[in-house]
């Protein structure tokens, strides 16, 4: 029951989602059957980091052409490794990068990736969400060949891999890749200009409404946004008063947003505002009126005085982030 675990790195460190994928891998096989794979041009440090956990072994999939991620490079390299070692399962974290190459890799080997898995049942039966979370589906692999699985971030969060005894062996595998086989060329990652407020692509938004009462009080909410690493937004009256620029307005006459988290502070939930943020994955509302319409659409709500709750929340967030 050999299980490959493909770890993804960012800035020279292994990303958190990869460790969560490790938890899934450990469901499919015992620790000593799990091979952690790190990919790149210089993978010594990455491998060392991986080796601190309890795995069967760590493989450094190394080639100069793997310095930067490319779909062609990673697919070719992994295909060769998988053909050499023939694991039964290949587990990935379900990241943008994995979505870009893992399906092609699976296809090359006549298989299909079971992606964005949120749970593993007996069989194994791989659970994924369908119809935007309204249904769960159980998938089963069949036929010969490795089973490719990618795991949703946060689905296996509690069970991170245990620390190893420092004896995890590390080997290197050098794939054969020709420069001509790499067809895409990627530039340096960039952000949109700091001047323009891009609420549309913000993952976390803290939004302030009339409940804040005065312009000076907005800094309370700014502090919270800062602590969370969130973008600041507002309902229309705030922008109309000039307390925040118009481009921060969320609503029918402003921007439509769909972040992972939308924290509405002192916003009642009038329809003109709701239509701008109803697509948010998680809505949290803080309002002193327990009957405020915003609570109808919120996932979590605090009916209390924002002037007390917001500072308390800012503190708690800072503490949690450490």
């Amino acid at each position, binding site marked *: 029951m050999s299980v490959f675990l493909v770890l993804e790195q960012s800035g020279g460190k292994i990303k958190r989602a990869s460790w969560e994928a490790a938890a899934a891998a450990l469901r499919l096989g015992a620790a000593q059957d799990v091979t952690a794979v790190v990919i790149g041009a210089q993978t010594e440090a990455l491998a060392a980091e991986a080796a601190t956990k309890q795995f069967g072994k760590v493989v450094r999939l190394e080639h100069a052409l793997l310095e930067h991620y490319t779909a062609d490079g990673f697919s070719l390299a992994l295909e060769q490794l998988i053909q050499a070692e023939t694991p039964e399962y290949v587990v990935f974290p379900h990241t943008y990068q994995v979505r870009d190459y893992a399906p092609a890799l699976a296809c090359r080997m*006549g298989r299909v990736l079971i992606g964005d898995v949120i749970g593993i049942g007996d069989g194994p039966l791989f659970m994924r969400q369908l119809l935007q979370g309204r249904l769960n*589906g159980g998938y089963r692999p*069949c036929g010969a060949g490795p089973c490719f699985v990618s795991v949703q971030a946060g689905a296996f969060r509690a069970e991170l891999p245990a620390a190893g005894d420092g004896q995890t062996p590390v080997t290197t595998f050098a794939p054969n890749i020709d420069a001509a086989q790499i067809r895409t060329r990627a530039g340096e990652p960039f952000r949109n200009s700091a001047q323009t407020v891009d609420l549309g692509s913000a993952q976390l938004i803290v939004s302030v409404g009339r409940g804040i009462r005065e312009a000076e009080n907005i800094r309370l909410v700014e502090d919270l946004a800062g602590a969370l690493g969130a973008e600041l937004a507002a309902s229309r009256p705030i922008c109309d008063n000039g307390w925040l620029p118009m481009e921060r307005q969320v609503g029918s006459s402003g921007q439509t947003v769909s972040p992972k988290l939308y924290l509405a502070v002192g916003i009642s939930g009038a329809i003109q505002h709701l239509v701008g943020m109803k697509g948010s994955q998680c809505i949290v509302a803080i309002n002193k009126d327990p009957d405020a319409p915003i609570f109808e659409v919120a996932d979590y709500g605090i009916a209390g005085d924002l002037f007390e709750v917001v500072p308390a929340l800012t503190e708690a967030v800072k503490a949690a982030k450490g």
Partner: protein
Amino acid sequence: MKIIVAIKQVPERDAQVRIDAAGKWIEEADLHYAMNEPDAYALEEALQQKEKHGGEVVVISAGPERVGSTIREALAKGADRAIQIVCDDLGKRDALGVARLLAAAIKTESPDLVLTGLQSEDLGLGQTGVIVAELLGLPHATLILQVEKTETGLKVKRELEEGWFQTIELPAPAVLTIQSGGNKLRYATLMGIKRAKTKEVRQLSAAELGVDGAPVVTLDEITLPKKQKSTQMLGGSAKEAAAALVEKLKFEVRVL
């Protein structure tokens, strides 16, 4: 430039979801269907490219007869012609099986560019476009927001996690999966619908394309998720409520 846009017809977002008798999929009897929204963005990108560089936009869709209405909608919005792969067992095929159907039909067209939405609103696999690229031997890029034609091929803007972006250059022909929100969608017009009536829709069957459907992954069962969405009110003092919220943000929402 000949652009192929692969479109999927999916159940309407407002659809009442009930599991069918066999427990393998949802009751389709009362469902209304619509164009998969990310595919609508792919179509919009294709139409804008055509407006800039000329050429032809061909839409392709696989599924039962009812898929015709979505194809007509695409034609109404400006696509030039369509290929309908009539296939009643789409649900039984896995991503590879579906991609094989599409790739077989696309191959006959020799396009300069193949666009499709990032993922579908029903299964949400997000793989079909990438597999089609692999089957056709074409380079690909995913999560694309902007497409630019260059001397040597294409220059595209790709979305990365956490608000980062990246420019990728690749040769044409290529396959791109388009992320929602890159363009503003156009609405269907009366004039468009009337014109669509005269546009060609070529029908093909899976058998004609010589593609078999034996899946390597099967969807064995469908269940309703246990958690239903309802508002959880966090009470207590300001400090207690804040602490409770942070717990939720950490473990349930996973943003901390």
